[in-house]
């Protein structure tokens, strides 16, 4: 469902992503790993429209989405979370999530001023979507809390819920378990699996190998912006190039 064709991004003299091609199938969990600075986050930014590629193409459901803005990409069904978990810290958890579904609504200023039924319906739907997403990640009890006040793991979950509330078909998760302890990491992994089961395509960046090896269907390895390997966890674990660049001997 997501095809990447020879995607590149240069920052001044540095090529952060260099002619990477890849393809991700519907309903699968795909991991992107690689040393720090390998270009993983940049890769996500390119796919999700946060920054424009220098060259290459991104095809989403067969449609060329290269160079679309992030909001346009989101409307097509791409949702993402950020490496440093971004939430609207000053709003309550539920309010965070209600905006999440805004992109699927059509109410305009006119609806607002006239107070039309459409607006009322859509506001209800947004609220329902928000509650459903919160329920999905198992945090219904937190809906009235201010987002800035909840714990790191809860933040990660709310970020998932926020992504889910946009009704996506593709989820891009940047280090979803970063800064989360092993026990909680397991919980998050289960949640990711649950999302894939529900039909979502998941791409995630992670450094936690135990989690990745158990979770991912396929793994893509980047190093210095280039793809150095791609395959199942088992293949990756045995790949000498990956071991040398990233895993080290211990994990092999």
């Amino acid at each position, binding site marked *: 469902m997501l095809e990447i064709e020879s995607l590149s991004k240069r920052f001044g003299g540095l090529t952060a992503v260099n002619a990477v091609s890849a393809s991700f199938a519907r309903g699968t969990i795909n991991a992107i790993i690689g040393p720090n600075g390998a270009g993983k986050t940049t890769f996500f930014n390119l796919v*999700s429209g*946060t920054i424009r590629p220098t060259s290459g193409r991104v095809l989403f459901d067969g449609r060329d989405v290269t160079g679309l*803005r*992030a*909001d*346009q990409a*989101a*409307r097509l069904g791409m*949702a*993402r979370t*950020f490496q440093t978990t*971004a*939430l*609207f*810290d*000053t*709003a*309550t958890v539920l*309010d965070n999530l*209600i*905006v*999440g579904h*805004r*992109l699927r*609504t059509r*109410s*305009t*200023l006119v*609806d*607002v*001023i006239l*107070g039309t039924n459409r*607006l009322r319906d*859509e*506001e209800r739907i*947004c609220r329902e979507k928000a509650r459903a997403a919160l329920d999905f990640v198992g945090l219904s009890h937190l809906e*009235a*809390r*201010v987002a*800035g*006040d909840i714990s790191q793991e809860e933040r990660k979950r709310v970020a998932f819920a*926020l992504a889910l509330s*946009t009704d996506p078909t593709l989820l891009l998760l940047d280090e979803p378990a970063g800064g989360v302890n092993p026990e909680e990491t397991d919980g998050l992994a289960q949640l990711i699996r649950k999302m894939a089961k529900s039909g979502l395509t998941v791409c995630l960046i992670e450094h936690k190998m135990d989690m990745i090896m158990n979770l991912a269907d396929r793994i893509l390895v980047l190093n210095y912006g280039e793809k150095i390997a791609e395959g199942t966890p088992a293949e990756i674990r045995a790949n000498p190039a990956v071991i040398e660049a990233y895993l080290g001997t211990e994990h092999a």
Partner: protein
Amino acid sequence: MKLVNARTGWSLLLLLALAFPFMAGNDYHLTVMSTAYIYAIATVGLNLITGYTGQFNLAHSGFMAVGAYTVGILTVDHGVPFWAAFALSGLVAAFIGFFVGLVSLRLKTHFFSIFTLCVGYIMFLLIEKWESLTHGTVGIVGIPAPESIGPLDFSEPRTQYYMVLFFLVASLWIMHRIVHSLLGRTFVAIRNGDELAQALGINLMRNKLLAFMLSVFFSGMAGGLYAGYVRFLGPGVAGVEHTFDMTMYMLVGGIGTLSGPLLGAIAVPWLTQYLQFLQEYRFVVFGPVLVLLVIFLPHGIVGTWLNRQRRKAALPATAPTPAPRLAAVPQEKGARHA
């Protein structure tokens, strides 16, 4: 429960406002109040882009001037009736706001502010220099009072007061609708984090532009009222100090709240009236008062109160109350480098 409270509060306020002319008993009080209402309308507009959307516009009084001059020029030079000209005042401001917004809203934080500071200054200079259109520094003299509607004669201070009050109430009502709707949530989302908002499918430019145009629409309309109320216009209306004044009203009352800017826009002019006895030295007092207010009541009067309410409602009684995190104001981004 909370809604009922808010509603009774607003109704009480409205009643008070309606009764004010009978309690005030003299035209001076009415003049102060009416002028305060006019600036309150503009401030409520400013609050939409600054308080709710997080883009601090310093050209706001420029747009107020645009609205005012729309009325001034049309009525004095082209014989257009006041109400027709007034109907255009907000629209013309919003129209110009469209182009200004298109360029300026690509900038963030201070860049946007200083950019709009310059835009405001250019507007001021244009008004001053473009004599064939604006009468330059001489200003527009003899703007007619709003024509009477039926038995309502708008050259009387009392009817003028009610006229201005009417538009203030209408503005607040519309603003209330906006900020409590999905649209308002969209604006707030942009304020709270534009990168995240965009990732959630919110078109930043379109929404910011909409907020900007709405905001200056209110400003233009306030300008139109100003023209019909003061009935003389000089380039000074566009002066940036008026934007600073409005910002101060917002901050004193509570930025990013509905009633805060209103409260500020009414309270501060009265305070300055009471400080008049100090004459030229009143700023020796007023300046430090302002500083103290900003330091000790950073969320403004309404904001401080609301925050307390919100925390109380959000937390289970047993949970510890976390440290207050700043609400309602565009947060400094500089610290996020690295």
